[in-house]
């Protein structure tokens, strides 16, 4: 899959590398700022308060 992706990218190896790095950075930014905060609302609700019933 990734090998095929690498082959369809245009240009010499360093241009491909640049494209890949930019794409990875964009994906990480999207994950950190939108996807992960959204996912967090579904996982392990953490209770930090004291109350009589849990």
């Amino acid at each position, binding site marked *: *899959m*990734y*090998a*095929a992706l690498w082959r369809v990218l245009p240009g010499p190896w360093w241009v491909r590398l640049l494209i890949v790095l930019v794409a990875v950075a964009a994906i*990480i930014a999207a*994950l*950190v700022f939108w996807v*992960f*905060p959204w*996912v*967090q*609302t579904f996982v392990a*609700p*953490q*209770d*930090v*308060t*004291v*109350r*009589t*019933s*849990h």
Partner: protein
Amino acid sequence: MRSANGRPRRRISVVGVLGEVLITAGVLVLMFLGWQLWLQDIIVGGQLHDQALQQSQKWDATKANTKPASSTTIPVAKAPANAQRFANLIVPRWNQAGQPLYVRPIAQGVGASAVLNKNNLGHYPTTQMPGDVGNFAIAAHRSAYGGNLHLIHQLHVGDHIYVETIDGWYQYSFRNLQYVQPTEVGVIDPVPEVPGVQAVDRMITLTSCNPFYSTAERIIAYGDFDKFIPRDDAKPDHGAPAEIADVYEGKK
């Protein structure tokens, strides 16, 4: 099949793609954990720091040209609406190298979706307001959602805990820690753990979860009220106590 440079070209196989998808999924899960337990609190902590200082700046503007509150009669504000931010928590002990100085917003209520999971410290609405006789009790996450009480266990006896409101700064001194069951609601009583007794002192109680990354217990920090320092236009840093004046450097 051979590619142009003569090396054999690997064919795309179902198993190969599946393997790569699984590896990618594993990497994503690890990245999520790294974000949730570490990176998030650095990013969110910085945002909260900025928001708290903006709030402080608004209070400066609102209070400008009005007579400062008296430092002898301690002002007690009316409880705000649920989820509304009304104070900042400032704890010099929790300043960490390489990160903005510790100042975080406190909102009314302890609802998970409305307050705590919006990265606030939350004020137990059944407890007193800052400066009132009784107990000003607040809760926050130990880690994730800004990790506002991440370093609660590192408080030393006598460490100052400041609560900043529009009126000024309420200074408390840390007294002791307590570890309790999640159902131990006595810790937020007007006199903690002594129900039904008329309070005469002013206290602060911080509650968070314990141990790290678990909700099995609660860690409780108590502080005793020392004094009130009014917000005063005429003084440097609008009257902020010298110990925390550096927190407001970024405000100017």
